[in-house]
């Protein structure tokens, strides 16, 4: 029995030994074939799968924002007909930037285009929501813009996804896959913004108007230029002219034109312009941190900044900037506590800045830049 058993074991051992070698060889060949022959294809499949998931999420965001827009328009605007088709038209709206081959005068052209676009958008929203008051129309306009942004993001990502799939281009797919988490984060912030606009809540970008409104509280206000309010106050024996976009509707106004008007009203006798705005922080920096610098602190396409720089240069007026750091997501979602609390620190900075850089009796312009949604004056 024993020798036979040993013989059987030897046979099995040999077979297993051979099987091991064959399996190892097969495994190595399979490994090489998969990772060198189809590695890129496999990776591309995986990336496409991830982009597809991301795209579905973006679609969900865009539909949520659209549903919210429809619901809010119906609730606030009391439309007589279904606003859906008109909202769809607004969501596909575009702006053709002017020719820049001859750049002279391009700022004026862009400014004019933006004015036309703004007026048309506002008029369209007013027509869709006849029951809304002027403040609500502003909020609805912002809401439609947030939905428009989500719709545009979705369309662009879908375009590159389908193009990458169609052309089998790994480079398009890799770029899209690498950027997708950031794009999704931004889209998520736009969805948060849409919710804030629907309810008229202040957003992080509103820190500038919040500071200006604190300065102009209980003072007589007047309107200058398009949607900008101004009030005079005294600070450390200096005459401070505070300005902000007219709230509480979602609005950024035209602070460039307003600053130009105030400087002209004072015949150029303005000792400094202090601009307060939210600024994008770097990763690792704390939200609500206050920082100061030189120059016109204002975002957007650049037309308003151009006007301020131009006027300041003509009259040799120094322009200072006090900024509150926050992420791009925080700038368009409801204002965080630490950002709101930074308002007091900003006022202290303005005080020390005007003490250091001006004399008693001087006139100083303090401009609160940003979207004034949810912030009155």
């Amino acid at each position, binding site marked *: 029995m024993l020798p036979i058993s040993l013989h059987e074991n030897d046979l099995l051992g040999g077979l297993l030994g051979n099987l091991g070698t064959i399996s190892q060889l097969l495994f190595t060949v399979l490994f090489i074939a998969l990772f060198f022959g189809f590695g890129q294809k496999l990776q591309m499949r995986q990336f496409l799968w991830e982009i597809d998931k991301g795209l579905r*999420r973006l679609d969900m965001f865009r539909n949520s924002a659209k549903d919210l827009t429809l619901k809010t328009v119906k609730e606030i605007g009391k439309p007589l007909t279904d606003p859906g088709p008109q909202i769809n038209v607004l969501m596909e709206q575009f702006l053709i930037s002017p020719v820049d081959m001859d750049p002279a005068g391009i700022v004026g052209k862009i400014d004019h285009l933006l004015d036309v676009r703004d007026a048309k958008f506002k008029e369209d929203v007013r027509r869709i929501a006849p029951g809304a008051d002027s403040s609500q129309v502003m909020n609805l306009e912002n809401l439609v813009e947030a939905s428009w942004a989500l719709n545009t993001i979705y369309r662009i990502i879908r375009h590159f996804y389908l193009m990458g799939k169609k052309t089998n281009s790994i480079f398009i797919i890799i770029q899209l896959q690498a950027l997708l988490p950031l794009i999704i984060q931004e889209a998520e912030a736009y969805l948060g913004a849409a919710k804030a606009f629907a309810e008229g809540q202040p957003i992080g970008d509103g820190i500038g108007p919040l500071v200006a409104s604190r300065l102009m509280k209980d003072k007589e206000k007047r309107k200058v230029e398009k949607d900008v309010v101004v009030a005079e106050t005294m600070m450390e024996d200096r005459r401070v002219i505070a300005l902000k976009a007219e709230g509480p509707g979602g609005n950024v106004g035209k602070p460039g034109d307003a600053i130009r008007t105030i400087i002209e009203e004072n015949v150029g006798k303005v000792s400094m312009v202090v601009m307060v705005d939210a600024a994008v922080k770097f990763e690792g920096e704390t939200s609500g941190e206050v920082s100061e610098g030189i120059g016109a602190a204002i975002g957007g396409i650049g037309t308003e900044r151009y006007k301020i720089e131009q006027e300041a240069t003509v009259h040799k007026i120094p322009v200072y900037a006090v900024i509150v750091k926050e992420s791009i997501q925080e700038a368009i979602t409801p204002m965080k506590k630490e950002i*709101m609390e930074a308002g007091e620190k900003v006022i202290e900075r303005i005080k020390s800045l005007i003490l250091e850089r001006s004399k008693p009796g001087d006139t100083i312009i303090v401009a609160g830049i940003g979207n004034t949604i949810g912030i009155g004056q």
Partner: protein
Amino acid sequence: MAVVGLYTIGLALNTPDLDPTLQILYLTIAVLAFTFVVLSFTRMRRGIRIGAYTAPKVLSVVKCGQCSFKQIKNFALGDFVFKTLGKCTQCTTGDLSIHGIYTEGPPKK
């Protein structure tokens, strides 16, 4: 993949007198299977984290212009900063107004 991993690790550890080459092969398959499972789970978690949007709780700070009265209430539709809400219930002379509107953000995950 988890089943494949468990099965191969079982084969590698429980089979008596197994050829060392075959044992290494089984262990390699098990490690690859488990790595795939772990990677899939971490990717799924990240996906869930990005996808779920929770609206933050928004609060309004109501203050009296005359006395020290301060109240923090839930944001209501129509609230805005510097909106006057009537007379103060504490001093009965000062006006109550919304001093600030903020969110503390979603809880940290």
